């Protein structure tokens, strides 16, 4: 039987845990707001560059860039965006599940896979399950810069240029709202021209300076970087939201647990008092 002191000790320890989870919840809530702002701040660039690229796909350039041409899929690359830290519920696990589904499908078709990981969790995951990790970036912090991503993205683009991969996907959590994060596998390369709007079925082309190849190279590289950056920023907002929800659940659970333990403590105390009383009464009766 647990004595009163034992139970009290446990209540104390759970209270301490609850304090931590409460603090983490509040920190995550404020960080989430900032992450959402950052998400909003990066949107104009992403929208604009997407518009330019879609204009390009609809225009009739004299030069067709390899990023826009479909080719037979024999090898596929994934850029997997994960969090650096844990304690954020099932966020990473759900993402990896979604990713594994996609990878299994590819493997079924006899396609080779290679992976570029962003965030320590993805790296740890591929270390455990095995997989060809060709590039890695982690410890981006809460305010990632595009500069930090250049290396990893460049590795994958080089692989695409050299024909080592025929398709490139980015895998990240899409921020739907605070309660919902949707694991997403999005194709970046080759760039899929969105369905042509009737209004913009024009027959014009840009003037390129200095020449089409150089300008397109640079533009499309920035496009890919922007898509990946957007994914990273969105994933951070997801991480904070998921952590906030997970920590709220943990705090609530701790509250329930404390309640239960308090009840057990009171009962144990009452039992001890009753026993003592009956002993005294029995002793008095014996005299």
């Amino acid at each position, binding site marked *: *039987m*647990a004595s009163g002191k034992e*139970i009290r000790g*446990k209540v104390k320890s*759970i209270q301490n*845990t609850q304090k931590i989870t409460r603090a983490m919840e509040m920190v995550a809530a404020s960080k989430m707001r900032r992450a959402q702002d*950052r998400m909003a*701040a*990066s949107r*104009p*660039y992403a929208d*604009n*560059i997407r*518009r*330019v690229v879609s204009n*390009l796909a609809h225009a009739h350039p004299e030069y067709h860039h390899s990023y826009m041409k479909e080719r037979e899929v024999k090898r596929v690359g994934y850029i997997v965006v994960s969090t650096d*830290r*844990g*304690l954020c519920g099932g966020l990473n696990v759900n993402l990896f599940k979604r990713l594994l589904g996609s990878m299994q499908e590819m493997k079924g078709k006899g396609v080779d896979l290679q992976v*570029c990981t962003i965030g*320590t*969790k993805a*790296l*740890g995951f591929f*270390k455990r399950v095995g997989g060809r*990790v*060709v*590039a*890695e*970036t*982690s410890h981006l912090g809460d305010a990632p*810069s*595009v*500069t930090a991503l*250049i*290396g990893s993205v*460049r*590795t994958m683009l080089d692989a695409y240029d050299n024909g080592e991969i025929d398709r490139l996907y980015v895998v990240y959590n899409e921020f739907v709202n605070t309660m919902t994060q949707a694991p997403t596998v999005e194709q970046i390369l080759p760039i899929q021209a969105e369905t042509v709007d009737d209004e913009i079925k024009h027959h*014009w*082309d*840009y*003037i*390129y*300076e*200095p020449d089409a190849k*150089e*300008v397109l190279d*640079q*533009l499309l590289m*920035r496009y890919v*970087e*922007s898509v990946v*950056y957007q994914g990273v920023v969105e994933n951070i907002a997801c991480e904070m939201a998921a952590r906030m929800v997970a920590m709220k659940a943990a705090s609530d659970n701790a509250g329930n*647990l404390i309640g*239960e*333990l308090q*009840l*057990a403590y009171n*009962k144990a105390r009452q*039992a001890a008092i009753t026993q003592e009383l009956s002993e005294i009464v029995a002793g008095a009766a014996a005299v």
Partner: protein
Amino acid sequence: MAMTVHVDIVSAEASIYSGSAEMIIAPAVMGEVGIMPGHTQLLTQLKPGEVELKMPGGEVEYFYVSGGMLEVQPRSVTVLADTALRAKDVDEAAALEAKARAEKALADQESEVDYASAQAELAMAMAQLKALDRMRKITGRRG
């Protein structure tokens, strides 16, 4: 009133300027270009320098860009500014670094501090659950 064109100056991390201007002077790689409203479609690279906007009121505003792209449509101009200086060799070095990091991380199984701490966290949570279970049994028996 003079004709104006809509200008967006954006970088990957933030929107810098959005509004109308009478003329845009930008540092393109082949030399400075001045864009007036109704310019034909143009796509060019920018080198580090100042983008100058002539506002409808006659004022002039300057924005520093560290390179990027300039897209011109007859009615709108978009500057996709870089957030940092970019050079081919720097990019390549960054790529090599990312590769090296991956190789190192894969080879070095023990350096995964995060994995270890996650395991410790898991063990702690399991212990707490077990304690809870035991407590439940006790209260169940007594109540």
